[in-house]
């Protein structure tokens, strides 16, 4: 039987894992629809207008679920971790307040964007979309600042268990914030770009009568997803260095570096928490030391430097980290393939990208990778920080609510989110994939010949 602490953690993990999908959509999708509408303004090709509307409809469905699940999270901070909020509220409330305003702006202009196609001039409508995209990205950044504080707590002093000398500005712009914000924002664009690409690549692969429409959609989605995927490993490197500096145990757990000493690069494997050894891992001797410091001999602290009760669950963190890296590598490989094909095409060789069936198939297969990487990355961030809710300051076990019977609320929210997820998938399938392209005057845009 799970303890109340475990149920609280499970409920928080599930709520975050659920919400983050919609939060990412709230950052990425507005950017897509704004690009599509901009192309419409430039070309007056009805196809792009249809595309913007189609993506806006998907955004509307997903944004609503994101808004309500985000509201649940803001309450859950107190419902599940009252002691944490009691100490942290005054310190990190600032980014949450700012996030409130960014989200407010996003909700207002999304309402305008979705419902005012015929009520305001096209330029004004496009600007409303730009405001949605910008405030969506900002609201994500503010929340991540608050999360980064849990990894790099600053801007206060703890005296006899009481928080004093509060400096909310310092807390908000903590040392972990820049790298986390950059990494997550890129992840959102990559995840949305890849997911949207997959949908339209699937339509093209199956053979659709609306080929031009899906080609245009795929092109825009790839333009957003692929560059983000290329930049992401760079930001990942910055993030990893930041973690290594401030949270060496989390870093060691991520990399599977169990014992202090020169660090090997560990691929795969299952770390054994009791013996601090790997089972079934490929190890490149000294490679991690080399990657972090430029020398294979540098001693890197391992998870053994802290007592067992201060270590995060090693297997989960290491595996999640590798899943994230793996997804990132695959996405980057796809981006490289795309770039190579585009370059060849420019020189007059090969077919245009969207018509290469092998490439289409790869895009379809890669479409969930961005979201898998987001989920895995958050597992690394959150589980890797354990047993601390605020790194080095407050333990998760000391922050949990005294409310008993949390298994009940966990079951309740699991059922609720499960139902919502089914409804969302069902609706997106029926409304986005299965319907034809409406309002598209035949012959106006026509079907482009396949080159």
């Amino acid at each position, binding site marked *: 039987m799970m303890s109340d602490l475990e149920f609280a953690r499970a409920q928080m993990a599930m709520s975050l894992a659920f919400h983050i999908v919609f939060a990412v959509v709230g950052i990425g999708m507005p950017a897509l629809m704004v690009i599509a509408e901009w192309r419409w303004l430039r070309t007056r090709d009805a196809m792009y207008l249809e595309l913007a509307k189609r993506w806006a*409809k998907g955004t509307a469905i997903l944004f609503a679920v994101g808004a309500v699940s985000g509201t649940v999270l803001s309450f859950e901070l107190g419902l599940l971790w009252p002691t944490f909020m009691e100490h942290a509220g005054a310190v990190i409330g600032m980014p949450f307040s700012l996030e409130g305003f960014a989200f*407010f702006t996003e909700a207002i202009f999304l309402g305008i964007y979705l419902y005012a196609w015929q009520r305001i001039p096209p330029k004004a409508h496009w600007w409303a979309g730009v405001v949605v995209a910008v405030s969506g990205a900002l609201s994500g950044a503010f929340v991540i600042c608050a999360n980064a504080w849990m990894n790099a707590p600053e801007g206060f002093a703890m005296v006899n268990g009481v928080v004093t000398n509060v400096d909310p500005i310092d807390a908000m712009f903590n040392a972990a914030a820049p790298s986390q914000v950059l990494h997550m924002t890129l992840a959102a664009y990559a995840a949305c770009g890849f997911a949207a690409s997959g949908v339209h690549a699937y339509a093209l692969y199956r053979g659709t009568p609306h080929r031009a429409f899906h080609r245009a959609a795929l092109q825009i989605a790839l333009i957003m997803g692929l560059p983000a995927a290329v930049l992401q490993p760079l930001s990942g490197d910055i993030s990893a260095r930041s973690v290594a500096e401030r949270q060496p145990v989390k870093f060691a757990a991520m990399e599977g570096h169990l014992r202090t000493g020169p660090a090997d690069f560990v691929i795969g494997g299952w770390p054994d928490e009791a013996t601090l050894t790997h089972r079934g891992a490929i190890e490149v001797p000294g490679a991690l030391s080399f990657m972090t410091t430029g020398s294979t001999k540098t001693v890197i602290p391992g998870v053994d430097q802290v007592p067992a009760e201060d270590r995060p669950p090693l297997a989960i963190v290491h595996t999640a980290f590798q899943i994230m890296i793996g997804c990132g590598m695959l996405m980057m490989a796809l981006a490289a393939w795309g770039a190579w094909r585009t370059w060849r095409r420019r020189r007059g060789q090969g077919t245009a990208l969207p018509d290469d069936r092998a490439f289409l198939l790869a895009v379809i297969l890669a479409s969930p990778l961005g979201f898998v990487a987001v989920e895995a990355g958050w597992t690394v961030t959150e589980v890797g920080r354990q047993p601390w809710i605020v790194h080095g300051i407050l333990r998760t076990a000391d922050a949990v609510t005294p409310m008993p019977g949390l298994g009940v609320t966990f079951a309740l929210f699991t059922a609720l989110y499960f139902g919502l997820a089914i409804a969302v998938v069902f609706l997106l399938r029926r409304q986005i994939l299965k319907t034809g392209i409406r309002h598209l005057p035949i012959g106006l845009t026509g079907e482009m010949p396949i080159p």
Partner: protein
Amino acid sequence: MSDAAATLTWTLPHAVAGTMVLSLNAYVLLAGADFGGGVWDLMARGRNRDAQRALIAHAIGPIWEANHVWLVLVVVLLFTCFPSAFAHLATVLHIPITLMLVGIVLRGSAFTFRTYDSTRDAVQRRWGLIFSISSVLTPVLLGVCLGAVAAGRVPMMSPADAAALEFGARFVDPWARSWFAWAVGGLTLALFAGLAATYLTVETVDTELQDVFRRRALQSQGAVMLTALGTLWLARDASPMLFGALTQGAGVPVLHALTALATAVTCWALARRHFRVARLAMVGQASCLVWGWAWSQFPWLLPPDRSITSLAAPRITLSLTLGALSVGTLILLPSFVYLFRVFKSPGAGFLPDDEAVTVPEDRAGP
């Protein structure tokens, strides 16, 4: 109690608390009306019942997500500026808050799903039922939570005292076994329904629909008066302190007079079909009730013995939050004005040709 109140001067914590009441007031006026719309969706009767539901959906559609954020703002202000109060409330009122959240989630998503799902009646009714039932339950629970706090049934206590209580005494009784709290829940529901019905008379030019909602608005007024009187009567036993504040506190006669005046004007304007006047008066009436509650509870944040000042976060947090609020307001207010100008100005009402809100034909086929 009155001594403590007299010694308190207006300070930064009070400014934040006032802002929270202001946000809650906005939530009641805007999201409250959306909830009320759900109530009338559930109660839609008669041969034009589909038209009633369509009107409600059109009125809520573009604005509900923005309206809903006011509650998030209240919560964020609470945990930033009064963190220990937030921690305490979230612990003792865990059960009603959780149920309220389920209601919020189901209502918002069901409404959106209904807008974008198939137009077939059965599908629409399924989402509509979830939407409307959760629209009824959520305001009641919100009122119950506020009522329990106002009646002083959620007092702060030491961790040792709290741990000594049994489950029921600690987590259930404070709200579930308070008739007063449930009366406030009923009042909240009646008020939200009244707001929605009154607003809806302005949202349409169809006189038949106007009459439906005019009648509903007047019925709601009856319910508001009944529940308000019931709440006052129950307050005598539930919280003599609150009852005292509601009947003899400073400025209370003015507040009661204003509430009565707003109520009278609402009813008169509804009866005479001056719908715009009725909407304005209804806004005044609801605001009077919200501020009446806040004023009667002042200076306590968690009655009976924790004041707004004693629970406040450090000064720097409060001033920075207020600073952020002012900057945010500079962005937010014009945005809100724009949103409501686009959708709620005369002539912007009910455009049947607005294709963005037309639900597409079911399974149009590729």
